[in-house]
């Protein structure tokens, strides 16, 4: 139990500059806040504040560089401004799980929409565009496994046809950056079953009925 508290405390010190400041001001108060026992208080004394700050900074830069793959253009044009906002954002939200980098990028995009400090319009527009395919991909993946099974998806599109209405299909290239192609498909195309049968096996795609 006690090591658990020590780990929770050290994690808080890694992630929050406010916690680090409080700990530097009075280590005992911080230790008591996390109910550390005496032996763990001793272990905590080994932490070097400067080295801790260095580690915390490197965590933030690492996270920032990781999300760059999802917003390359925005990074290219607005890197300095993004970094400023990211510093604030990174302390307010911490993603978790195997897909945490996508989640982090999307929630950073959301953060910029409601940020207290000024965010340039062109930045918000560009990041919105770049994150759009990832957002759709991520949300749909979270909601359903349908899109993982190419055959099922194909039958879904067919079913959509019988249900009436137009079908919008968005192709996502999951090999590299997503390439989005959207089109209104005339239902007749499904009778031909072409060219989608080949597309299905090399691309992921999402079908939305209107």
């Amino acid at each position: 139990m006690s090591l658990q508290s020590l780990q929770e405390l050290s994690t808080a010190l890694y992630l929050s500059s406010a916690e680090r400041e409080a700990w530097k001001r009075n280590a005992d108060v911080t230790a008591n806040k996390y109910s550390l026992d005496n032996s763990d208080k001793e272990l905590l004394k080994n932490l070097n504040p400067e080295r801790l700050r260095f580690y915390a900074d490197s965590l933030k830069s690492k996270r920032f560089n990781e999300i760059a793959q999802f917003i390359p253009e925005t990074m290219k044009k607005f890197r300095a401004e993004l970094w400023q906002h990211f510093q604030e954002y990174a302390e307010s939200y911490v993603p978790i799980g195997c897909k945490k980098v996508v989640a982090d990028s999307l929630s950073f995009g959301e953060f910029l929409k409601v940020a207290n400090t000024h965010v340039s319009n062109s930045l918000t527009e560009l990041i919105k565009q770049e994150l759009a395919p990832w957002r759709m991909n991520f949300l749909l993946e979270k909601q359903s496994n349908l899109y993982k099974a190419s055959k099922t998806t194909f039958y879904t599109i067919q079913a959509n046809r019988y249900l009436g209405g137009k079908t919008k299909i968005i192709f996502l290239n999951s090999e590299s950056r997503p390439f989005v192609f959207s089109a209104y498909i005339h239902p007749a195309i499904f009778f031909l079953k072409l060219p989608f049968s080949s597309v299905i096996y090399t691309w992921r795609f999402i079908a939305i009925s209107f």
Partner: protein
Amino acid sequence: MPSLTPSWIQKLPSLGVGIGFRKALKQKIFTSHTQIDFLEIITEHYAQPSFGQLQELTRLNKIFPLIPHVLGSSLGNASGLNPQYLKEIASVINAIKPLWWSDHIAITSTGNLDIGHLAPLPRTMEMVKIICENISTIKKKIKYPLILENISFTHTLGGELTEEEFIKEIIERSDCGLLLDLMNLYANSQNFHYDPIEFLDRIPIERVVQLHIIGGHWEEGILVDSHSSAPPARVWELLEYVASRTKIKGIIIEWDENLPAFDRILTEVKRAKKILSKQGTLKVSFA
């Protein structure tokens, strides 16, 4: 003198020298596949895979022996392992059916908070017990041999054990192999002022299965293991030393940042292969 190396490690085949699979290198890796003996893949990248990722993994698995490397299981987590995370990495590793797989002696998350990188553990016997329990949980889900990596760190929580004793206790009690990262060792030896050779003499070197080699960079007087440059001379010396002491089953050049021209990576692969080739007749593992 009889070998101290456990028989399950002795029986593992030698894979040679490979590289860490990175998307940016994908095409070059395929075209140069005859020069690369095996690949290390980041397991998490293929968790809940898309169709494209599944195709990629299947193709890679056909051409190369793959060794899955896990980054975020947080083996040292005193509140236990995340069952969902465990399930996801297990499904990838069990699908690959690798000769072995690797994880870290570290923590990456506590409760619902993800640290975002590997962080050091307090070096206490209580911690040894916790990590061994977590390893035993993970071994029930993943039957392939597990090897553990020494991490680099810029700060420490101390503890009653030295770093070498801590590694020895964990590796031996959990009957794991060692993934010895020589750059991590070199960086720690620089940042905490000790002799890396003495370190190597004190760890169970006979349990080394695989090595990581790469270079880093200096920042604010700290040597950072950023995987951003070629292995420095001292790392090559450490490799020669380890190779003279135990049979190495595989070496991975772990380049992540500042990726150079691919030929440069292949040059490092060749250099490591040359050192391994001298091992052909080395039979005795002794610490």
